[in-house]
């Protein structure tokens, strides 16, 4: 029998049991729906992550650290327990015990700066302000300070930002929009105003001799002054107010200063401590034409751990893939349930059409063709279910996309669900395959039916 004839007969048999066919395929449609959405969400998230990274991060940029744990590259082996003392490690008290992190020393920095593949080698300074004052007000605030990253694109709500790759001036500061909101001022009104950062030198413990000398010369007032930490005010001009946006990666909650200024402040606040001129992270760029991945491997050989822009992207992709896998898992479960539905329906169909099968065999239809007839019926069910499920998901997803974009503040033009024809077609094809596999046993039963038994009327 020709395949086309078998497919047509299978299709007509299904049409004759419309309700049953539809219900059985709806079971498959649930799986198809979930899988289509997971495909679309995965694609959408990856596109979004890709857009986020490529529009914000210089593909040549590298983040370099000494400690593998810091970049999520290796085991955080230094957490808890008893460890060798390392003069170059910073100890942070975290949940569940202190964590010591290996830092980059001046020697390390010099080594990186000498590396002919790298340019723009800058330590990531992490200055801490005692307090800040904005404008003419005497009110003191606290806030995080970070370094302006010329390699990351930002949008300004007011004022202007330098071109990508150019640092801001040493006496300039860029503040996030949240500051303006907190102060209740329009962002434009803050441009050109002064921002005073007050930093404190670490408190020193005076020796007995120092105490005696001070007491003798300046009295108790002098002693108070000695134990009080020394402070310094740095006055900066507000250059721009950063807009908080869905597609910018910049840390929008901290004020940003030029790296030279950040170095000054950091040096000032760490003077005399073990952290003086040691850094957790150094940023750099691979020179034009040099693959950052090669540089990364190179640095690894020298005991550094580096992450490229691509790694950052992969990290985001990994998260997306895991989430997508979870959703797809539910789809597969639904599909598994529908497999039993198909087996059941097809068994009933074989029983109902015993005489028809008997007749076809009596007329010389081969067992193989009888089996094919039932397998194609199962295939039709799978196809129908796939089209219904994927179609509904596509329509619903397209309708809901603007709402989702709004709710998740993804920014205009970005969609969480991105439907692509090729994966959806492949999905439907695999649903057809699943249905055919499910129809295997009923089809075999039909093929093995004895025509004499089937045609017995009594």
């Amino acid at each position, binding site marked *: 029998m020709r395949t086309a*004839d078998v497919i047509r007969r299978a299709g007509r048999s299904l049409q004759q049991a419309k309700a049953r066919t539809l219900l059985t395929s709806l079971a498959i449609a649930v799986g198809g729906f979930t899988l289509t959405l997971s495909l679309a969400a995965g694609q959408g998230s990856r596109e979004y992550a890709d857009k986020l990274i490529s529009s914000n991060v210089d593909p040549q940029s590298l983040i370099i650290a000494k400690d593998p744990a810091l970049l999520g590259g290796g085991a955080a082996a230094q957490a808890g327990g008893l460890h060798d003392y390392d003069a170059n490690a910073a100890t942070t008290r975290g949940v569940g015990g202190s964590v010591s992190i290996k830092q980059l020393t001046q020697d390390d920095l010099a080594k990186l700066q000498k590396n002919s593949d790298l340019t723009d080698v800058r330590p990531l300074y992490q200055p801490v302000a005692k307090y800040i004052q904005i404008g003419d007000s005497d009110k003191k605030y606290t806030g995080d300070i970070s370094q302006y990253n010329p390699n990351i694109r930002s949008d300004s709500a007011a004022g202007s930002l330098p071109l990508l790759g150019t640092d801001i001036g040493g006496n300039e500061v860029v503040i996030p929009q949240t500051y303006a909101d907190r102060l209740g001022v329009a962002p434009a009104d803050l441009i050109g105003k002064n921002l005073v950062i007050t930093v404190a030198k670490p408190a020193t413990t005076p020796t007995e001799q120092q105490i005696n000398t001070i007491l003798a010369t300046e009295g108790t007032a002098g002693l108070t002054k000695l134990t009080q930490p020394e402070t310094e005010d740095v006055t900066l001009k507000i250059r721009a107010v950063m807009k908080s946006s869905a597609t910018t990666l910049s840390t929008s909650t901290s004020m940003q200063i030029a790296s030279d200024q950040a170095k000054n402040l950091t040096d000032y606040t760490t003077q005399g401590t073990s952290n003086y001129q040691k850094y957790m992270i150094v940023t750099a760029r691979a020179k034009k034409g040099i693959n950052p991945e090669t540089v990364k491997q190179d640095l690894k050989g020298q005991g550094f751990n580096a992450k490229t822009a691509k790694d950052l992207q992969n990290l985001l992709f990994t998260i997306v893939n895991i989430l997508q896998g979870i959703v797809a898992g539910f789809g597969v479960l639904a599909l598994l349930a529908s497999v039993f539905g198909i087996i059941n329906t097809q068994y009933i169909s074989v029983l109902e059409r015993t005489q028809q099968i008997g007749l076809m065999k009596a007329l010389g239809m081969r067992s193989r063709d009888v089996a094919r007839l039932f397998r194609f019926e199962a295939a039709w069910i799978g196809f129908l279910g796939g089209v219904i499920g994927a179609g509904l998901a596509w329509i619903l997803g397209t309708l809901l996309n603007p709402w989702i974009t709004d709710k998740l503040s993804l920014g205009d033009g970005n969609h969480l669900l991105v439907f692509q024809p090729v994966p959806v077609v492949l999905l439907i094809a695999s649903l057809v395959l699943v249905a055919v596999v499910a129809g295997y046993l009923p089809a075999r039963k039909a093929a093995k039916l004895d025509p004499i038994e089937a045609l017995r009327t009594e």
Partner: protein
Amino acid sequence: MIEVRQVTKTYGKKENAFLALDGVSFEIPDGASVAIVGKSGSGKSTLMHAMSGLDRPEKGEVLIDGKNILELKGRALDAFRAQKMSFIFQSFFVQANESCYNNVSLPLEIADVPVAERKRKVVRALRAVELLDKLNVRARDLSGGQKQRLAIARAIVNEPSILFADEPTGNLDSSTGDTIEDLLFSYNKANKTTLIIVTHDHDLAAKCDIRIDIKDGKILSVKEKAGSKSVSREAEEVVAK
């Protein structure tokens, strides 16, 4: 020519064994109309199944044009049935939800008849049974007699050389039954198709060239109708042996 030689078929095993056919032998010349007559349980249906290759007797041969169909492998036997044989049943077995056209075209599809030829053959078969006006009507909407005519159209569409009819008029009233009988016999005469009718209806049997009576799996007699050619003499000789 159909030659049945020493066909024996047993159902069940050991103590429960039941001899459905016990060394049955006879011959049917091409183009004859044959009635296999017997009560229910006599083995007449089993004999039809054995002759059509649906059933496999333990012993004996069924030679059709000199070829023993009981020795054919599954695929070849299916092809043989699709090309040479056809069936008409008491309960019609038309596919109720299919149109008349698709009912009749089924044997052509099974026999791999080219698409171009099918339409012509289906129309010719439906015209022969006077159902051409019902071409696109679903079989469930036909009366009993029309259903059996449809079954006949399906049986003759691929121009078989042997047509088996199992109680073809059993479910019909007498006047409709007569129409069906006329249809079968006129086709038999016009196309030289061997017609083998399994029945317990003696009136129907009387219209056939050859009447084979069967009881308890054994042939009682093979009789040739008076006036027809000496087709059954050889058959009687075989039985006498």
